[in-house]
């Protein structure tokens, strides 16, 4: 990440692949496959949000789904009330971002760190989950949107062209718009990470004390990183809500938060492509396992996760990258030592 983004060939390759998929896929694939890939695109945005704050800000959130769910519910409630989806999409970014600032302020100015920070984010997500599950009765409505408790909110409007609420997107167009979101967010994050701001974040991740002795306001920096991650997760939530046309408390659940952790972990902490690859791979696997009714899918998924952690502790992307860059020797030398972003300092 040291050299400018514009001089990194990998950056151009990734964007080119993204654009190619965005324009070619709807022409070449059938409707069902397009809808499947749309799901990976949405969840990849969610994975990116955690990949960014964890890999480039050293903030480990066990409750990233709180933002995902907040964005999803914001979008659902706002779009059902407004009948349009443009402003709700913006709100789904703004409200989780504001919440991220507040929660970040609460945590970082309280000097919470590592596991304790993780637990606070987990607890916040759990509170959300408890409360949203409790909204089954008709008294829990915001405008014309019933929150619906465990069953969630059905009939969430499909995305439409801004300004014209009658111009619904068909699944192919929705896929292209979402792919566009993913590419824009990826580019924005790459530039952000390479900026002065991003370098300070990485500096803090590497050594918090040193950064603060150098005069950087560590706490403020972390709050901003955390809030940006929250906002991106919020957008992912909104995309999820409109893609599925329903949203339920599962979007805030511990399972959802943990899934994001696993994707980032499997793909590789400290990269942006890693979380995307981890997400696609594991989601695809979950889906495939459900089509076999011989073995218990959950047991197999668990076994695969364990093996992944034991066999590829650094994640897929960093492992492949070092294989490609330095060849076997380098890999062998580095193997077994953890990279700094991954191990949480005690």
């Amino acid at each position, binding site marked *: 990440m040291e050299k400018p983004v514009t001089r990194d060939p990998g950056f151009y390759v990734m964007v080119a692949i993204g654009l190619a998929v965005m324009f070619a896929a709807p022409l070449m694939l*059938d*409707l*069902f496959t397009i*809808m*499947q890939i749309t*799901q990976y695109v949405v969840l990849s945005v969610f994975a990116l949000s955690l990949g960014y704050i964890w890999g480039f800000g050293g903030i480990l959130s066990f409750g990233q789904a709180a933002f995902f769910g907040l964005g999803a519910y914001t979008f659902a409630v706002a779009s059902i009330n407004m*009948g349009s989806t443009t402003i709700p999409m913006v709100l789904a970014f703004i409200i989780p971002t504001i919440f991220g600032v507040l929660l970040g302020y609460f945590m970082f100015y309280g000097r919470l760190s590592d596991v304790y920070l993780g637990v606070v984010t987990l607890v916040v997500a759990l509170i959300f989950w*408890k409360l949203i*599950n*409790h909204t*089954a*009765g*008709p008294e829990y409505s915001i405008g*014309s949107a019933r929150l*619906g*408790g*465990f*069953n*969630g909110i*059905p*009939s969430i*409007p*499909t995305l*439409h062209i801004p300004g014209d*609420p*009658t111009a*619904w*997107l*068909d*699944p*192919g167009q929705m896929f292209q718009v979402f792919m566009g979101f993913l590419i824009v967010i990826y580019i924005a994050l790459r530039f952000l990470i390479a900026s002065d701001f991003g370098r300070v974040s990485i500096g803090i991740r590497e050594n918090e004390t040193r950064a603060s002795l150098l005069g950087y306001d560590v706490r403020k920096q972390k709050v901003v990183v955390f809030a940006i991650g929250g906002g991106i997760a919020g957008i992912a939530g909104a995309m999820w809500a409109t893609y*599925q*046309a*329903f949203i*339920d408390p*599962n979007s805030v659940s511990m399972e959802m938060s943990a899934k994001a952790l696993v994707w980032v972990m499997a793909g590789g902490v400290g990269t942006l492509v890693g979380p995307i690859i981890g997400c696609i791979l594991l989601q695809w696997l*979950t*889906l495939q*396992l*459900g*089509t*076999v*009714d011989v073995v*218990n*899918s*959950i*047991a197999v998924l668990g076994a695969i996760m364990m093996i992944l952690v034991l066999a590829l502790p650094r994640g897929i992307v960093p492992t492949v990258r070092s294989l490609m860059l330095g060849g076997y020797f380098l890999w062998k030398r580095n193997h077994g030592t953890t990279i700094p972003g991954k191990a949480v300092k005690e």
Partner: protein
Amino acid sequence: MTKLSRRNFLRSTGMAGAATLATPLVARAQTDTIKIGGLHDLSGALDAVGVPMNQVFKLAIDEINEAGGLLGKMVEPVIYDPQSNMSLYSQYATQLALKDRVDVVMGGITSASRETIRPIFHRYNTFYFYNTQYEGGVCDRNEITLGTTPAQTVARLIPYGMNLYGKKVYTIAADYNYGHITAAWVKRYVEENGGEVIETEFFPLDVSQFGATVSKIQGAKPDFVLSALVGTSHMGFYRQWAAAGMKSEIPVMSTVLGAGGSDQLILTAEEGNGITASFGYFEEIDNPTNKAFLEKVAAAYPDKDWVMSEISEVTYEAVRMWADAVADAGTTERDPLLEVLTSGKTYDMPAGKVKIDPKTHHAIRDVYIAELQDQVFEIKEAFPDSPPADTQMVCDLVENPDSNKHFEISL
């Protein structure tokens, strides 16, 4: 209301786009088997309910194939495991409708899962059977709903309990859609029968410790407790109730216990004895169809660790009724099948006589009240030909065939 219908209209026009995109695939779907989709949770939190449903589902299909198939073709099940996860429900439903192009789908367990997949099948015109007892109110021409609703079960259970035990009722229910609606029905029926609900408490689905409630109920001194608790965590209530020695003090009735076919086995005999429930099917039902059915199930699954319950038996009914309609209509197209199914034909099923109400596409069926003794439900009373009166209040598919909604019946 106008606003809502405008949105529905826009939505359907939006979906027209999707339909155009899908057309070339429809043409391709000429296969030599008839495909029937099954969506039951085979792992995760709901597997105790989903596994028996799926086994009975497969048994019913085997039966059809052994008898030579349908329309000269074999029936091929396409089974997915949604792993008790709503997002997977939505994905597999899309997969069944668009990729596998099945002729009909059976499944969905919770109302949440049904409301996830029902709009998908409606959108892609994939015929859908929902076979679980639920809170009532689905009004969708594309769906046949065979399980019981509160007007069929709760309406019978409440007067039965009030006659036996008294007029003061304490309701405990699961804190989600089903629990809230059922609790509302309980209140209505109790009041209609001149009684009083002294307290209604809701519990999140993950609560398993009920010490506080057991004490609270004792303080309130009701004549009986009505439980609409759902799921394995909530089984803790019945245990802790028995452990406090309350079984001999205040009787308990339930709208859910026994629905899935494993609750009565999870509780020991002492804990479960005396709990009364009402469903459209119990193993005890004494008719030749049921006897033959149970023998067949026992032969096919000798190691099964579940009891036949309403939702599994109804799954069997669904496959048989659909197959009967296909044979009758000579096609698997939805509309001719619906015509046969809603023609007033009465089906002789293990549960008794079943027919489909053309107004709601729900079942008019025999309903039973039974009491748990030594892990087995003993039938106390039967109510033939009970209509889904609750859904009939809000839904008329003969008048409004385009209805596509889950009404929450307000009382």
